[in-house]
Structures are given as C-alpha cells and as structure tokens.
C-alpha cells in the first residue's frame, strides 16, 4: 500500500488536478479503514480505493468528477442500497461518509503540503497526525507531531505512524520477491547480506536499504519493537548469530526459511547455546503459511501472508511446529 505521497506522485505526471476522496465514516462495516483514499484525476485516472472497488467506488468517482468541475469540496454519504442486490442478499447494506476535495498537483496545495509534512515526520521515525475540518466547502488541515491535542468534535484525525520494518537477511530470490510484496504492504524493507554480488540495488529496487557487511551486526540496530525479521539466507552462518540476538530482542516476528528437520536442528543448537525454550519458541520455522507453493514468488507470498496475519493478530499466523 503506497503512502499518500507515492499515490500523488504516480498521478502528477499525468494529471493537473484530482479529486481526493477520504473515507471519514462508515456504518454497517467497511472493508477499508477510515482514512482510505481514492484519487480521481481530471483526465480520468484513478488511484486508490475507499471500498473494494465495486459500486461504492464507482459512485465516489462520479462525485469526484462533479466536485472537480464545481471546484469545491463536499462531505457526501454513499449508501449501498441497490434494491436488486439487497433483494438477493448480495450487498452488505453499508453506508460510507466521504470527504471529497479538489487538489491541485501543479500548484502548491495546502492539503498536499499537510500530508507531505506528516509523511516526512513519519519517515523520520515519529508519529504525525493530520486533523481535517469535516465541513463541506473549504477544508482546513493542521499537522500535529507526536501527539494530537486538538479538538475532537467536527474533526477527522489521521495518524501517520512510522512504517514497521522488515529485515530480510539473505538476498535470495525469495527475498527479492518478498521485498516487492512487503513494500506494497506498507513495510519499510531492509535487505542484509554478506555477499555484495547478491545484495544489489538492481535485485532489490523496491527495498528502502540494501546493506552489505557482517549480517549480525547490520541487523542489530533494527532489532526493536514492531520489527519483522525474516531469514531467507538458508545459511546457518548467518542464521545462528542473528537468531541468538533476535530471539531475545523485542521484535514482533522472527521467521526462518527452512524445512522442518533443519529448523529443528537450528533450534537444538540454540538451546545448546543457552537460549530458553520460550526464546527458541518464538522462531517461526518453517516460515510462511502452508499454501503449497515452491517458486520464489509463491514462497514470498506465503511469508507475506503470514506477516499480515501476525500484524492483524490472527491465530493462523503460527504454523504448527
């Protein structure tokens, strides 16, 4: 999921104005979180979504085009009230509130400036809040770093937290495929390897950082709360030194690409070195949800699915060991 600035950058070469629709309320269930955005370009391009892309998004596009022509912002409600779909039970019957505003991509726009500021703060490792007035007409935004201490009533507050970090150890083909998927999932991707022929910018164009050196030392600064550590090296020379530290660190997830037998052998070595059962028990190996694929892209997909499940607190996140 690209952040808002990446979405705007993808539109900028093609569109001079866009309508930005922000999901600010929902009743009856919403597939997308509040704050989800759909951009409707003056030239017809669409980026993002506020629902699953069905009739709700289609209606938001119509509203966006109308408001672009009128050059004003408006708060609109879209109901899923298609009579036939309701009759057949093929709709959720939900209601969505959206703030739709025209945005200029050619001139300095106050909304874009506010989001740029918030994203800059979050990319620097801090949390930012963008508070938007919800009245139709001209909307106003204020950026709050670290904490939001503004009014609650009549405001829509979006939180921009720093992205969680995924540390990929071992610049393998699986890692390359996973790096691509993980960026799309909103993770900050760090690739680590001891081999400069593998860990290259060419192979990891979507990664935020590609680091070559002593892997266990390069990984150390990222062993912090919320981080995901995925070992795809399939090399005990990297796995053991990193696991010794990662399994004792407050990271959210430690997983290793390995078959069951090799994973058990690594666990036995770690126990022999003094790690507790609880610490060793934190290791996800074999890694990934059991979807049966064998190609790098398929394995990466199974790992990415597991990372999402961990992030969402789903019990499927842990495979039987």
């Amino acid at each position, binding site marked *: 999921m690209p952040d808002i600035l990446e979405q705007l950058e993808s539109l900028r070469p093609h569109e001079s104005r866009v309508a930005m629709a922000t999901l600010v309320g929902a009743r009856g269930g919403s597939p997308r979180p509040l704050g989800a955005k759909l951009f409707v370009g003056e030239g017809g391009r669409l980026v993002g979504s506020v629902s699953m892309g069905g009739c709700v998004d289609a209606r938001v596009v119509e509203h966006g085009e109308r408001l672009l022509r009128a050059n004003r912002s408006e708060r609109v409600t879209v109901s899923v009230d298609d009579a036939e779909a309701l009759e057949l039970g093929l709709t959720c019957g939900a209601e969505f509130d959206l703030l739709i505003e025209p945005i200029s991509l050619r001139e300095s726009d106050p909304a874009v400036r506010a989001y740029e500021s918030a994203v800059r703060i979050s990319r620097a490792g801090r949390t930012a809040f963008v508070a938007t007035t919800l009245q139709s007409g001209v909307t106003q935004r204020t950026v709050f770093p670290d904490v939001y201490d503004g009014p609650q009533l009549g405001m829509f507050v979006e939180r921009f937290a720093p992205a969680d970090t995924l540390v990929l150890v071992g610049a393998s083909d699986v890692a390359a495929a996973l790096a691509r998927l993980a960026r799309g999932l909103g993770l900050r991707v760090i690739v680590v*390897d*001891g*081999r*400069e*022929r*593998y860990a290259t910018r060419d192979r990891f164009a979507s990664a935020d950082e590609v680091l070559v*050196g*002593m*892997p*266990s*030392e390069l990984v150390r600064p990222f062993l912090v709360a919320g981080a995901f550590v995925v070992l795809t*090296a399939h*090399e*005990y*020379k*990297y796995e053991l*030194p990193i696991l010794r530290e990662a399994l004792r660190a407050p990271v959210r997830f430690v997983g290793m690409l390995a078959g069951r037998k090799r994973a058990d*052998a690594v666990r*036995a*070595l770690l126990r*022999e070195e003094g790690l507790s059962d609880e610490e060793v028990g934190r290791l996800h190996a074999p890694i990934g949800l059991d979807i049966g694929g064998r190609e790098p892209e398929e394995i990466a997909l199974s790992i990415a699915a597991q990372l999402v499940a961990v992030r969402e607190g789903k019990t499927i996140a842990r495979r039987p060991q």
Partner: protein
Amino acid sequence: MTLPYGAIVLEHFRRPRNQRALERPTVTREGYNALCGDRVRIELEVDGATIRAAAFTANACAICTASASMLTERIRGGDIEQAARITDDDVIAGLEADLPAGRLQCAILPVRTLRDALAELRPKT
C-alpha cells in the same frame, strides 16, 4: 548438528575461543568470501612486537569459524613475526580434517585476513 569434518572443527565451532570484539584493538581487518558469504573480522591488540590479545567476529561456516578460533588461540600472547609466518597449510593441518578442495577457502580466510591485519602494523615504505 553433525559435521563430517572432524572433532576439532566441531569443538571450535560449538565453543569458539576469542569470539568477541576487543575494546581497543590496535588493528582490525575484515575478510570475506564473495561467493559463499563467509565473513570474518580479526582484531589484534599489540604491545611492541607482542600480540597481547587476538579476537574475531564471524558470520561464517563451521570450518571458517573453527579456523579463526584456532588461529586466534595460536597467536595470542605470541610474536608478530611468528604470526606472520603461519601458512595456509599450517591452518589446514591444524584443523585435522579431511576438507574437500571446495572448502579450503573457508579454512584459509581467517589466516589471510590475519596477514592483511599484520601488514597494516608494518611501517609503510
């Protein structure tokens, strides 16, 4: 985990000697095998002609780790010139293992890294 390379390799891999970072190394040198990814860093604390302390850090296979462990044991407290005379064959023989040709590079990476480190200690001409 069992290794086909003998008791000495296994012992030094499981209980490596001098695997740590020195607080105030006189010289530090890192070597790596670009293909297999073995990485080893040798650190020496030198007092005159004597190697007072020798330590290593490794993200490396069992053979390379064992080799670095044995090597640092051997040179610790000894003379710089003696350390410089240690050959690749000395290290390979010390491991007392029947290493396949493809793994000899793993065994000699630490001693070559040591030589680079010692070269830094010599006065530049």
